[in-house]
C-alpha cells in the first residue's frame, strides 16, 4: 500500500453539450494506492462517472495528467489504451453491458479470449462457478435476471485478475437485497484477489465499506 497505482493531477474535463461546453471536472488531484479501495460519492452530475472513465482511459482529459501504473493514459493511442485495460483493468457498469448475443460463459471468457488465453473457457467456467452461476453459463443475458447479469459482469471484470477494478454504481439497477449480495461478492472478490478498487456510488453506506471515501461536488473534490 505504498505505491500509487492511479495518480491524477490537475485533471479537467470539458464536454460538448447541446447548449455549449460543459465543465464536468474542474481540476482534480487524486492518488489511489495499490490495494486500496476507494469510494467515490457525490450528487448526480458531480462528475463521479466521468472521473472513473478518465481513470479507465475511456475518456481523455481536456487538461492535466492521468497516470495508471505509472503510465500516462493521455499519451496512449486508443489501441494502446485497449491493450492496457485488457492487461490491468476490470470494469463493472451500472447497466451491466453484457453482449446480448453471447452466452453468460462467453461474456465472461471474452477478456481472456481477447488476451489470447488458450484456456479462456475453462477459466471463465470456474469464475462463473465461483459466482454461483455454473448452471447458467449457456444462458443469454436476456434469459438472466438483473442480479444474475450483474454477477456475470462481475465475473467478467475479475476473470483476468486485473490490478485495478473500476465499478460504476454496480447496484444502481438492482433491488436492495440483490444489490447488497452483489456488493458482498464484489468486496469478497476484491479481498481475495487484492485488486485496487474504485467504486462510484450514491450510497454512503456502500462507500463506507471502502478504505477511503472521496466526495465530489460540482466537478471538484469536496472532501
Amino acid at each position, binding site marked *: 500500500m505504498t505505491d500509487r497505482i492511479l495518480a491524477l493531477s490537475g485533471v479537467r474535463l470539458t464536454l460538448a453539450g447541446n447548449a455549449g461546453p460543459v465543465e464536468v471536472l474542474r481540476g482534480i488531484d487524486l492518488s489511489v494506492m495499490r490495494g486500496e479501495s476507494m469510494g467515490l460519492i457525490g450528487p448526480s452530475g458531480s462528475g463521479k*462517472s466521468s472521473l472513473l*472513465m478518465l481513470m479507465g482511459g475511456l475518456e481523455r482529459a481536456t487538461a492535466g495528467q492521468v497516470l495508471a501504473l505509472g503510465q500516462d493514459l493521455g499519451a496512449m493511442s486508443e489501441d494502446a489504451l*485497449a491493450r492496457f485495460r*485488457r492487461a490491468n483493468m476490470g470494469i463493472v457498469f451500472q*447497466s451491466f453491458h453484457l453482449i446480448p448475443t*453471447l452466452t453468460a460463459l462467453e461474456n465472461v471468457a*471474452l477478456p481472456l479470449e481477447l488476451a489470447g488465453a488458450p484456456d479462456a473457457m475453462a477459466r471463465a467456467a470456474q469464475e462463473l462457478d465461483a459466482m454461483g452461476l455454473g448452471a447458467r453459463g449457456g444462458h443469454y443475458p436476456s434469459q438472466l435476471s438483473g442480479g444474475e447479469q450483474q454477477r456475470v459482469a462481475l465475473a467478467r471484470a475479475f476473470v483476468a485478475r486485473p490490478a485495478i477494478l473500476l465499478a460504476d454504481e454496480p447496484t444502481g439497477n438492482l433491488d436492495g437485497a440483490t444489490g447488497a449480495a452483489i456488493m458482498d461478492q464484489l468486496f469478497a472478490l476484491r479481498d481475495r484477489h487484492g485488486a485496487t478498487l474504485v467504486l462510484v456510488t450514491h450510497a454512503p453506506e456502500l462507500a463506507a465499506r471502502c478504505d477511503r471515501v472521496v466526495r465530489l461536488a460540482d466537478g471538484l473534490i469536496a472532501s
Partner: protein
Amino acid sequence: MIAVARTALRLALRDLRGGLRGLRVFVLSLCLGVAAIAAVGTVRGAIADALVEQGAVLLGGDAEVSYTYRFATGEERAFLQAQAARLSETVEFRSMAVTPDQTQRALTQVRAVDGAYPLVGALRLDPPMPVQQALSGRGAVMDRLLAEQLGLSPGDGFDLGGARFTLSARILREPDGAASGMSFAPRTIVALDDARSANLLVPGSLFDSSYRLLLTPGTDLSALRQKVETAFPDSGLRWQDRRKAAPGTEMFLDRMAEFLVLVGLAALAVGGIGIAAAVQDWLAQRRESIATLKALGAESRLIHAIYGLQIGLVTLAGIGLGLALGTLGPMLAAPLIQASLPLPVAIRPSLPGLAMAAVYGGLAAAIFTLWPLARLDQVRPAALFRDLGEGAKRRPGWRMMAATGLVLAVLVGVATATSGNPELVLGALGGVAAALAVLALAAAGLRQGARRIAPRLRGRPGLRLALAAIGSPGGGTVPVVLALGLGLSVLAALGQVDANFRAAIAADLPRRAPSYFFIDIQPDQIAPFLARADETPGVTRTESAPMLRGIITRINGADARRVAGDHWVLRGDRGITYAATPPPNTTITEGAWWPAKEAGPPQISFSAKEGAELGLKLGDRLTVNILGRDIEARITSFRRVDFSTAGIGFVMTMNPAALAGAPHSHIATVYTDGSFDHSAFLRQVGATWPNITAIRISDVIARVTEALTAISRGVALAAGVTLVSGAVVLIGTAAAGDADRRREAAVLRSLGASRGQIRASFALRSALTGAAAGGIASAFGALAGWAVMRFVMEAPYRFEPVSALALVAGGMLAVLAAGLAFAEPALGARPAQVLRARD
C-alpha cells in the same frame, strides 16, 4: 495475425447467432441486383453457346461467300467448289407476293435455293415434306403468317414478280433464318432455277447471292478465308463462317445484354443505398457491444475484423442467393425465353455470367459497406457510461475513402473492359452517379427545408410533426429518397426515351416520310411509272433515283476499315446513286458539284456528317466495289443528307460518267394524302409492272414498333428490378424506424393526440417523402431523356407528362403504403408498455 483472425472469426460467428435481423434488407438488396445480372448472364451465355454450337446450322454451312447484285463468276464458283466438300448457291431478294385475283399482296423476302439446300439443318414444313419436293414444279414454301395474311393454303397459286408459283407448304422453322438478322418482310423460298426462268433476277435487280460451303472436318477456317480473299482481292465478296454465323443477331443480343447488365448495376446501386443504411443501422444496434469490446481491450483491427467478417459472410449469402435466383429464374422461364429468341437455346447455368454477377455483387457490397464500417472507429468506450448519442458523423479516414475509391474504380474498369461499348457504360454509370448526387442534394435540401418550416407551423401539429420527422437525422428521409428516387429515375429515363422514340417513329415519321418505296424499277419503266404515279389522285409528290449498291473497300488506297475504323458506312454494302445535277434541296457544305455534262473521271459527293465521322476530306480517293468491279473516285464535294425523313438519301452520289454502263434499277418514293386509294394503285402497278416491289412505310414502321415493343418490354422488366430494389430499401427503412415510431406514437398518445391525428401525421410524412422522390426522379428522367434524344438519337425531345406524373403518384403511393403499413402496429401498441420499456 492468425490468432486475431481466429478470435475475430469466432466472435463474428457467435455474434451472427443473433440472426440476420437488420441485415435482411442487405441480403435482399444484394440478392436482387446480383440475380438481375446473373439472369442476364445466364440467358446471354445460353445464346452464346447456341451460336457456337449451331453456327453451321444458322449459317447454312461451314462458311459462306456472298456478293451483292451479282452471281459468282465461273472462275470464282469453280474455286469455291474446289475448296468445299459440298457447295450450295442461294439468292435473296425482296418481291411482292400477290394472290391470283390481285386482291391480296404483301412484301416478302425471297430466298431462291439450289438443289443442295439446306446443306446443314432441316427446314420444318407444314405439311411435313422434303424441301426439294416442296419446291419442285414451281413450288414454293412460305412463312406461316404470310400465308395466313394472303389467305393461302397448300396447293393455292400466287404470283411472285409476275410469275405464278404454287404454295406447297408453310415454313414452321427456318434453320438459317436468324443469320439474316432483322428483315422487314416474312420469308418465301423458291427454287433458284424457277427464279431465273421467271426473270426475277434480271441485271440491275437488287439481290444478294450466297455460296455456302460444307467443308471437310478439320479445315482451318481462318486459312481458308485468307485463301479466298487473296484469290479474289477486289471482287467485293463478303466472308462469313460458322464461328460468327449470325453477327447481326449476336451483336444485337450482346448490346441488349450489355444494356440489361447496366440496368442490373443500377439495381445494385439502388440496393446499395439499402445496404449502406442497413449496415449503418446494424452497427448502431451493436454500438454498445462494440464499446464493450473496446472497454475490454479489443483493438481496432480486431473490431474491424469481427464486423468486416460478418458483413463478408452476409455478402456471400446475398451473392449466393442472387446467383441461385438468377440461374433458376431463367431456367424456369425457359419456354418463354426460347419462344422469343430467333434460335433454339438451352438455358443452363453460365459460369462466366455467374462469375460476372458475383464480382459485381462483391464490388457493390464493398463500395456501400466500407464507409459505414469505417465509422467503427468512431464508437468510443465512453458511450457505455453516458448516452453519447450518435454524435457528429465524421468522414472516415483517408485510407477508407481511398479504398472505397479503388473498389469503385475496379467496378467501372470491369464494366468498361467487358463491354463492347465503353462510352455507353461510362455514360450510364456516370448517369447513376449523377442521379445519386442530385438525389443526395435533394434529400439534404428536403430535410433542411422541412426543419426550417416545421417550427413555423403553429396550430397544425400533424403537419409540424410530419415535417419535423422528415427533417430529423434518423428519419429515414435520405435512404428513401436516394433508393426510391434512383429506382424511379431509371424508370423515368426509360419512360421518357421510350415515349419520345415511339413518338418520333410512329407519329412524326409518317407525317414526313413517303407512303411507299418502290424498288427494282427497270430503267425503261421509271418514266412511265412516275407519270402514272403523278396522275394518280392523292399522290402529292414523287421522287426517284437510280440505285446501285457497293462496298467502300479502300480510302486513299489503304484498307478502309483500317483507316476509318468500324463505322456503319463501311459495314457491308451501301446504296449509291448518280446524278448529273444536284437533286432538289441539296445543300453542298464543302467543294463543288461536277459540271452537268462533264464526262471526266469518277467523282463522289459524300454525306457531310458521315464523311466527317470517317475523317474524309475533299480530294480523298475512295475505292468502291460495285458488282465486283472496283471504281476509284475522288471526293469533290460534301453535302448535307437528312436520313431522318426516311425519304431517298444516299451517303454517296457519283457523277453519271462513273457508273455509265453499270446495270442498275431505280427506286422511287411516293408521298400521298388521305384521298389516295392504296389498293387500286398497287393493283395497277402490279398488273403493269409485276417486277416492281412496293414497300409500304407504315408496314416497316409497324415492324420497327413491334421490335421496339419487345425490346422495351425486356428493358422494363429489368428496370422493374431496380424498382423492386427500391421497394425493399423502402420497406427496410420503414421497418428500421419501427421502434422510434412506437415511441413517438406512445408519447403523442400520452399527450392526448388521437389515433387519427397520429395516422395523418405518419401518412403526411410518407406522402411528402414519396412525392419528393418521384418528383426528383421525373426531373432527372426528363434530363436523361433529353440527353439521349439530343446527343444519341439526334432528335428533338418532348417532355412526356403522363409517365412523369404517374411516377410521382407511384412514388408517393409506394412510400405512403409502406408508411401506413408500419404505422398500424405502432398505433396499436399500448403506450404505457412502450414507455416503461424505454425506462
